[in-house]
């Protein structure tokens, strides 16, 4: 799916202090984790407006966590711990993770977190009519997106693999937390939803610790708690898929996740053609729906993450219909291949861009 969780096996959790540490993982590659928890003493109300920041590398990506408040340091510390825990549960590159065990044994009693992610995945899978599909993993492997050893699979090869990606064949009982695969050739990966679930979890930890203002970016998956300490909106720029100067636009938010997906994130080029990593489960090939970038804005980070890739796969028309039928759960910013921008009602007035933007209005009925 979107970004496979891979290869980073062990990231040391460093509870305190600043500095640079390195660890060697099993593949012999050096990982560096640098974390710092600092407090900004320049602020007026020192006790209540402490600021804590942490950078870490987890889930195969850079992450930044910022919190303001009395317990900011503790909240950020707990958040890091949780992120690393979730990484350990969900990484397909870690053979001891729950996902790896489930894929190997085709059945497993899931932990509370993985069970919850399974549940949410099932819902989004159904509501997007399979555009979101964690069982796409074997296809991702065939393209080499898990190992970065890219190749173009043969048509017949894909045809065979596509027989084994029916996510409805993954059964999950919420009361016993037991999951099993009816089709034993299946493998799943929650890479397309894990970071959204993780940022939701971080927000929860922030709230539990009395934090009222915080921001996380998990490899470009942004989620904010409350507003900035001065009460103003967080300003979240949207990455421009085409060029490295100029954002697509800037969105002002409070209490929202902003998650952007596009073919520019991971791709390879062969015979003059770009093959990106958002695979259409219907065809087994990179989605070619006419969209270049999709941004989902929602209070629900898990939903936003799951939808960012599936809306990308749907294309403009289906995306509009899906949005019309889904109540007020999310808003979106769509960029088409011919560089037209579409922004839905709920965020239209909070979005500014140098280019023209077409407003998508909700049809009541």
């Amino acid at each position, binding site marked *: 799916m979107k970004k496979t969780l891979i290869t980073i096996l062990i990231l040391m959790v460093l509870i305190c202090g600043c500095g640079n540490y390195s660890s060697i993982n099993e593949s012999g590659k050096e990982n560096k984790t640098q974390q710092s928890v600092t407090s900004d003493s320049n602020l007026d109300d020192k006790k209540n407006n402490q600021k804590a920041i942490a*950078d870490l590398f987890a889930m195969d990506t850079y992450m930044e966590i910022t919190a303001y408040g009395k317990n900011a340091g503790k909240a950020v510390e707990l958040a890091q711990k949780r992120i690393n825990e979730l990484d350990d549960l969900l990484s397909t590159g870690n053979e001891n993770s729950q996902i790896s065990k489930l894929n190997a044994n085709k059945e497993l009693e899931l932990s509370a977190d993985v069970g919850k992610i399974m549940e949410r995945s099932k819902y989004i899978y159904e509501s997007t009519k399979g555009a979101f599909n964690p069982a796409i993993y074997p296809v991702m492997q065939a393209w080499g997106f898990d190992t970065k050893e890219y190749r173009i699979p043969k048509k017949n090869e894909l045809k065979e693999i596509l027989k084994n990606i029916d996510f409805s064949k993954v059964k999950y009982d919420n009361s016993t937390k037991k999951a099993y695969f009816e089709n034993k050739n299946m493998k799943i990966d929650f890479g397309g939803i894990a970071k959204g679930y993780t940022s939701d979890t971080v927000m929860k930890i922030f709230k539990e610790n009395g934090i009222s203002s915080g921001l996380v970016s998990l*490899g470009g998956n942004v989620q904010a708690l409350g507003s900035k300490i001065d009460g103003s909106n967080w300003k979240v720029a949207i990455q421009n898929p085409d*060029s490295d*100067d100029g954002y697509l636009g800037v969105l002002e938010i409070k209490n929202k996740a902003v998650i952007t997906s596009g073919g520019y994130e991971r791709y390879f080029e062969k015979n003059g053609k770009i093959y990106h990593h958002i695979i259409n489960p219907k065809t087994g090939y990179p989605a070619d729906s006419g969209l270049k970038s999709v941004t989902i804005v929602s209070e629900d980070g898990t939903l936003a993450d799951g939808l960012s890739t599936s809306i990308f796969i749907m294309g403009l028309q289906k995306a509009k219909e899906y949005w019309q039928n889904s109540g007020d759960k999310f808003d979106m910013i769509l960029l088409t291949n011919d560089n037209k921008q579409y922004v839905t009602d709920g965020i239209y007035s909070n979005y500014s861009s140098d280019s023209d933007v077409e407003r998508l209005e909700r049809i009541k009925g």
Partner: protein
Amino acid sequence: MINWKRNNTIKNFIPAIIVLALVVVSLKNYSPKAFAPKVKEERKVEETTTGIVADMGHTKETTTDENSTANSDSKVLPVNLPDVINHEDFTYKDGDFYGEAQGFRGMIQVCVTIKNGKIKSINIIKSQDDEAYINKAISLTTKIVNNQTTNVDTVSGATYSSKGIIGAVRNALEKAGVKKQSISSKVNKKNSKKKIKKGKIPYKDGVYYGTGEGFKGEIKVAVVIENKKIQYILIMESEDDKEYFNKAKSVVNNVIKYQKTSVDTVSGATYSSKGILNAIKNALKNAKEQTNKKPSNEADDSNNTEQETTTVYVPETGNNVYKDGTYALTGICNPDHGGAFEGYTLSATITIKNDRVVGITDVKGIGSTYIKANDWYLNRAIKGTSKEKGVVNQILSKGNAESIDTVSGATCSSQALIEIVKKALENAKN
């Protein structure tokens, strides 16, 4: 003068300097007013006396009037290249010329060497495209040199990188070419859309430094403010890897484009931008402090215990020994006794401000004798080792090139770089 106050954290790792020549792509849209005339003078000096070619890859010597620079700028060759350039319509000046164009991931920069009016060599200086594609597309440079034309087919499997390279060479040739006919009005039209916002930065002109905590360590930037605008941002020192920096470049470009750092984060950017943004913010904070400070307070600087700030801006006195400016120069790295490797030409861009060397960027080997294996030595000379300070760090903390220690094992490259800085100072003498 300039005090570098180091965070404690930096002790933990090798005090290395990567002078990432992020003389940012966006620069080409204007030339800082104070610098532009210097560049012209500089060129004259070079051409008449030493014969060494100096050319600014990033600063246009054209007028600083905003509208006209926007039009004259020819940076962006879009992915749709004009099919054919009629090379017979141009004659080319001898020298090294820099050009850039959009690759897949970002701008590809090349250095084209013209000798006797012919394209002698092409070096790819900078690219953000994945190495695999560049390696494929690099064959085009030979093809262009052999056939003396940029009208070559792209390499399949690396179309975007190919187009970037071809575009960049054409861009360089435009600077080298005495045109009998304009290349493509289409290209210019596209560029004119790109405007730099008007200056609103309420700070005094100057070079300001700031640091921020990057992923792997401290990032140090120099922000040049002139005419109420952030004119450019140099990333002077960083522990972060190259890939990170190629990505971070977009952050720098955006700050220059929008003239502010006000975005909190970027959705869909799979890299960390906080360190670099904080470094820029701290530099601007410095600028603010310096702007508001009364001259009488300057004596208190030594008591300033603030950790983030790294430097004190020295106001212009009017009695400078050296003219402020940016100087692109070359020097020769010659092995001692017909040594183990072939000598090569080193080029670097030196920024002088208030009698101090404040920037050493774009350090690279150029010309056909420079081979990839030299990168290691050059890198060592620039960054130093865990025991020895790099040449760049030494010069920047001293502000001049006197009594600079060469880095062992990279003596030749060190020497060449020191010579370039000395040459720049020599040329900058009032």
